[in-house]
């Protein structure tokens, strides 16, 4: 929608994602451009099926088959060194994405009951975040603990020998992880440098680096063998204990009562609100820069909803840099978000700061949406948008909203309206606001 301004954290440009289903191609995203800035809570609003979820899933590259990102760009500006051009993640390998997901960007889901694996305990599932992204740290802490306990033991005692063996194996594993991390960061740095460069040489080098990135695995030497042998495998027990400690600590920090007990539970033994807290714990384990919340409260009781929203707001203040909040609930948007984008049928309709959007909705769809929300002092009948969400296998030509639009013009069925900055930092994609003309102030109504 706009070039990445200062402070952008993630950006999509003309993102097109399609689903190749049995009935035909579902054109789920029709060139979506959004910018999430550093430090803000950004909202994506729209009716169900408008492409909110697909947008964030594309952003994390976890669109499920038969969906595919067909064109566009996704840029991430995770640390200051990327601030220039950003990382184009569609060019990166799947293993690179794996290192980002859950670590720099993480996600919480609509239905906590379904989002948790029924056969794994809370400890397994939350601990997995640490296992996937913080293994080095976990091993080092375990080693420190082992060293500590070994010092208190008599030299030559069998328990001390066991500790020594455990330590040796863990150290081997740790060395493997360190070498792996070094190799990976070297590759990533070089890839970031090559990002902006064109030409055959750069492309070949990029391919080679991506290949190497995909192949890189932490190699643990002797520990890799020991891990496969039943009894010897138990050398990792202190490591499991360390991870468990972190899990319990994390659960406690999220205000979960009796965390040590909850950690050993299975998802079906917990209430919906508690399950959602566990999902949040999984997402927060590695202190992400961006937390994506995909309708985190829509399947919860109202009181629990409020608690979860409070929790996310708290966390936003204390730990996470930015939150991308997806919802169909305009009231929630007003309460939580700084800036908001309204989506309709795979198109971005309007983007503005929350107060601005509620005060001066420009797009007819936004206007309709706001008018359809009941207010406490509502007297007249609630207005609604006539018609239904279009079939995205054969979406309407031009502006996808035009069949339902009260202010439709002849051009609307022909051309897709471009996004225009009609007011300062208030973008709208509608033929009512042609790019050249820029009004001084006020909406059309």
């Amino acid at each position, binding site marked *: 929608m706009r070039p990445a301004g200062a402070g952008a954290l993630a950006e999509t440009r003309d993102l097109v994602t399609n689903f190749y289903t049995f009935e035909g191609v579902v054109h789920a995203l029709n060139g979506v451009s959004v910018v999430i800035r550093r430090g803000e809570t950004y909202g994506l609003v729209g009716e169900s099926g408008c492409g909110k979820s697909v947008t964030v*899933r594309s952003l994390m590259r976890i669109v499920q088959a038969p969906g595919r990102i067909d064109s566009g760009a996704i840029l991430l500006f995770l640390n200051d060194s990327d601030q220039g051009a950003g990382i184009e993640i569609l060019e990166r390998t799947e293993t690179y994405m*794996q290192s980002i997901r*859950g670590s720099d960007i993480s996600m919480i*889901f609509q239905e906590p009951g*379904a989002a*948790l*694996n029924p056969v794994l305990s809370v400890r397994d599932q939350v601990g997995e975040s640490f296992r996937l992204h913080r293994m080095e740290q976990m091993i080092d802490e375990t080693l420190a603990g082992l060293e500590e306990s070994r010092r208190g033991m008599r030299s030559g005692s069998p328990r001390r020998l066991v500790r020594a063996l455990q330590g040796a194996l863990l150290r081997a594993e740790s060395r493997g992880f360190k070498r792996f991390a070094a190799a990976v960061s070297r590759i990533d740095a070089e890839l970031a440098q090559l990002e902006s460069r064109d030409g055959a040489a750069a492309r070949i080098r990029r391919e080679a680096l991506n290949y190497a990135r995909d192949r890189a695995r932490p190699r643990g030497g002797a520990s890799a063998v020991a891990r496969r042998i039943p009894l010897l495998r138990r050398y990792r027990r202190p490591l499991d204990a360390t991870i468990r400690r972190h899990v319990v600590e994390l659960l406690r920090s999220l205000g979960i009562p009796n965390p040590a007990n909850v950690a050993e539970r299975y998802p079906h033994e917990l209430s919906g609100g508690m399950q959602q807290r566990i999902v949040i714990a999984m997402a927060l384990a590695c202190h992400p820069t961006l937390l994506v919340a995909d309708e985190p409260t829509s399947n919860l009781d109202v009181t629990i909803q409020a608690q979860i929203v409070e929790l996310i707001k708290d966390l936003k203040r204390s730990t996470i840099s930015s939150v991308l909040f997806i919802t169909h609930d305009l009231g929630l948007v007003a309460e939580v978000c700084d800036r908001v984008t309204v989506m309709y049928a795979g198109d971005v309709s309007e983007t503005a700061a929350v107060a601005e959007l509620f005060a001066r909705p420009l797009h007819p769809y936004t206007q309709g949406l706001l008018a359809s929300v009941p207010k406490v002092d509502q007297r007249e009948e609630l207005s609604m948008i006539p018609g239904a969400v279009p079939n995205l296998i054969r979406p309407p030509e031009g502006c996808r909203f035009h069949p339902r639009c009260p202010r439709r013009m002849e051009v609307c069925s022909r051309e897709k309206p471009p996004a225009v900055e009609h007011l300062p930092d208030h973008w709208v994609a509608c033929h009512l606001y042609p790019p050249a003309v820029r009004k001084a102030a006020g909406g059309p109504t």
Partner: protein
Amino acid sequence: MSLVSYVIRRLLFMVLVLVGVSLIVFTMMMLLPPGQRVAIYVNGDRVTPQMMDRLIAKYGLDEPAPLQYWRWVSNIFRGEFGYSITASAPVWDGFVRFFPVSLELVLLAAPLIILTGILLGTLGAVRKDTPTDHFTRIMAIVGFSLPTFWLGLLLLMVFYGFAGIFPPSQMSNEVRNVVFGGGFHQYTRLVTLDAILNWRWDIFWDAFYRMILPSVNLAIINSALIMRLMRSSMLESLGQDYMMTARAKGADRRTLIRHHARRNAMLPVITISGITFADLMGSMVITETIFDRKGIGWWMAQAALQLDVPAIMFDVLFLGTVYVVINLIVDLIYAWVDPRVRLA
């Protein structure tokens, strides 16, 4: 609900089912004229026609059915199962002779069946709609449609008849002479295991070699069901929301498939292992007949041909018992794997 009381309740249920099985067996056999049922009550030696009438009277074979049922059941509890003409021995002796042969084959074939089914099913699901998937699917449905007896005959024709390898029967004549000739200690009566315990690798190899073709036969036919179920339940698992959560967490493909999807996908497969076992027993009858292995299945087929009533009644009861026990074990495994199951 504690494990112990669950198991006790299940055992009571087992007894109920077994009583039902015994009733069915008994009802079936009551359809036969008394003369053919005499052997059930005779232990030790053959019945000659001259003795028949006397024996019918002696064992009350023309008395009311409930009385006869009672007598039969109490005989079973005394361990008296009658005389089997196909085994030329009392039924229990026949069982002791034939059972290890079948057990040996099942112990080799069952892991083969389960592994093939699970691995190929997973492969098909993970590579959905690729040539691998189509191939495994077609293999499964063809395996499902092949008559056990025909596949066995084809395997024998190609490998033994044409190439001269993988001969049928349990062991070669020389080996049989050694095994039953003294000097060879039969610890377990499983020839392969005994051969190892006696440190006779030649015998082990001879017996093992002859088990390969029958196991393959059983595996091709019986892994089809597991393969199909594994594929579809794996596909279902892969489509669940928790897979999305795991991906969003940054899990790699291997973790996703092994740690998250397969554990869930295994659950339905565990549930049907009882059915798989029953199918396997059916296939065993045919496979042992074709490959000339004198096990329980072969015995059953011979007994049915020669109207060896005691052997048939015993086999049906035995297989029913095994089925019920296996299902109990399966349920316990299920409860262990799936935390949601309360043993209620």
